[in-house]
């Protein structure tokens, strides 16, 4: 088990390296001169050159990359070209907002998704099933930012129940979390329903029925655990996507999260911030991926055996 985890952790390293190369290249190709942007309108050529040297921008591309990696390996991710603050401070001042939205959102989608999915499967062909299927079909095709706008209109503008923008207290997270959650939730409902229906057709469910197991117990003890397996995987994938994918939603609600940081940084060619953020998200999503597989193993003894073997 430990061996498996260590092996998986080691596998993250080449991925991070690959990402750093790709991003560094793209950022380098982005037009603009960070030093010029930083120095403002009035400057002397010497001052500009000095700033460039200070930021390491005068070196050739390859040397810049090596330096960056070398420093990063020593825990120094550099300073933001734009604000001159250490990159770490920049990233971590923004991160809690994104994490809060992601966290709230995943709870909403999993809880509602699984419950509705199960009910729809158990009561297949019922009115509830038909309605929930129709709604999920539409929800899966709605852009989250438009849901966000509509929710804003309804709850903030018309009803005045929730804040219109920004994060003053936790209520500010509700609408963005719901807006992000709905399309993902639609997929979770569809998946839960279809795997539940598949599982209910399995022989071991017939075996359980033939044993005289009551219907409720069949659903919750025999079927649910098996049906949850693909749901766990999808939920894991959703979390990693949301960590890097709330950019648009943050714009809708004016939330100072990772998304807005990324947009300003990319526009200003703030390479250190972009690199650190993306690599951080990538590491996180690899870890979440690993966690999903471990949960999977905890549920399914067959997977556990593979991991141990």
């Amino acid at each position, binding site marked *: 088990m430990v061996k498996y985890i260590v092996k998986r952790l080691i596998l993250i390293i080449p991925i991070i390296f690959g990402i750093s190369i790709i991003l560094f290249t793209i950022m380098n190709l982005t037009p603009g001169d960070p030093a010029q942007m930083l120095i403002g309108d009035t400057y002397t050529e010497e001052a500009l050159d000095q700033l460039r040297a200070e930021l390491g921008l005068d070196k050739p591309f390859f040397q810049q990359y090596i330096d960056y990696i070398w420093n990063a390996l020593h825990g120094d991710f550099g300073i933001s070209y734009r604000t001159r603050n250490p990159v770490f401070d920049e990233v971590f001042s923004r991160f809690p907002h994104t994490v809060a939205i992601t966290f709230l959102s995943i709870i909403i989608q999993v809880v509602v998704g699984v419950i509705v999915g199960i009910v729809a499967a158990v009561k297949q062909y019922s009115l509830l099933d038909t309605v929930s299927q129709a709604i999920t079909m539409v929800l899966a095709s709605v852009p989250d930012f438009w849901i966000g706008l509509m929710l804003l209109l309804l709850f903030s503008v018309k009803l005045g129940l929730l804040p219109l923008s920004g994060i003053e207290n936790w209520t500010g997270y509700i609408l963005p979390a719901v807006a992000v959650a709905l399309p993902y939730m639609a997929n979770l409902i569809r998946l839960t329903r279809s795997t539940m229906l598949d599982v209910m057709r*399995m022989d071991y469910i017939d075996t359980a029925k033939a044993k*005289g197991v009551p219907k409720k117990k069949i659903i919750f003890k025999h079927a649910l*655990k*098996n049906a949850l397996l693909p749901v766990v995987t999808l939920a894991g994938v959703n979390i990693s996507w949301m960590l890097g994918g709330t950019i648009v939603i943050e714009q809708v609600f004016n939330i100072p999260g990772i998304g807005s940081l990324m947009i300003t940084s990319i526009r200003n060619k703030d390479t250190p911030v972009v690199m650190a953020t993306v690599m951080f998200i990538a590491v996180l999503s690899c870890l979440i991926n690993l966690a999903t597989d471990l949960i999977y193993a905890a549920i399914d*003894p067959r997977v556990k055996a593979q991991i141990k073997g």
Partner: protein
Amino acid sequence: MAEKLLEIKDLWVEFKTDDALVHALNGVNLTVNKGEAYGLVGETGAGKTTTCKSILQLLPERVGKITNGEILFEGKNIPDFTEKELEDFRGSKCAMIFQDPMTSLNPVLTVGDQVAEEIELHNPGMSKEDIDKRVDDMFKLVGLLPERKGEFPHQFSGGMKQRIVIAMGLACQPDLLLADEPTTALDVTIQLQILKLMKDLKEQMNTAMIMVTHDLGIVAKICDRAGIMYAGEIIEDGDIEDIFESKYHHPYTVGLFGSIPDLTVKTDRLNPIQGLMPDPADLPTGCKFHPRCPKCYEECVNVEPKVYQLSPSHMIKCHLFKDIKEGGNE
């Protein structure tokens, strides 16, 4: 006369799918006496599994429906049972073993739990220790080490899984065991071990059994009586002596025997039945076997044959026998 345990009277079952109405059972009559092993023989689609599932009321919801007939267990009609009565009936009075041991155990529960669940359900109030002891006993009985009860199904081979399924089926000493091709998925040497186990346990516990199979050899080894199924009907029914040694047979039974290569006699060619099983959504008129029957004549095409009683135990549903014995009963 032996005491009747199960009596199925004129059972009709339909499956309604999107594009067809499938006539799965078309008037099945069968009786199983206490402690007796009844073999239900037939090919794919004959309705053997549907018969078993009807007994336990396990037909797929919405799709499968009993349209006529009674299934009397100790005189009570099973389709009339309430949900609660059914739960009590299943497992404790009547258990079922499915064809494929690979898929009939829940992969995420330990095998011990799955056996214990059955005992717990039908013995409310039984202490944890007693249940545990009972599970151990069942494991020993089917030839497995009780220490392995904490393991999961994937850690066992096919033969051992089927032993677990048998342990589960017999854990509450049911009066009737439905075994749906329990050895088809297994290798011959393992099949023999399982058959021996089932025969021994059945005698030990005095459990009646319906053995569903396509293999007449298994019937010869295990059963006391047998019925041959074709297109949702039992077309011949009798003691195994009637089935294996009588000179009168339904032409389909003759064809079935002719299809099996005989180990003892050297034959040049087999004598198979021509043609294919009829489509259960579009059954032939008259006798359902007539399009494939070498002895088919006009009456067979138009008139459904009656069941003729050749001896007190032997029944054949075929026009050929109306002159051999008078007084066929419906």
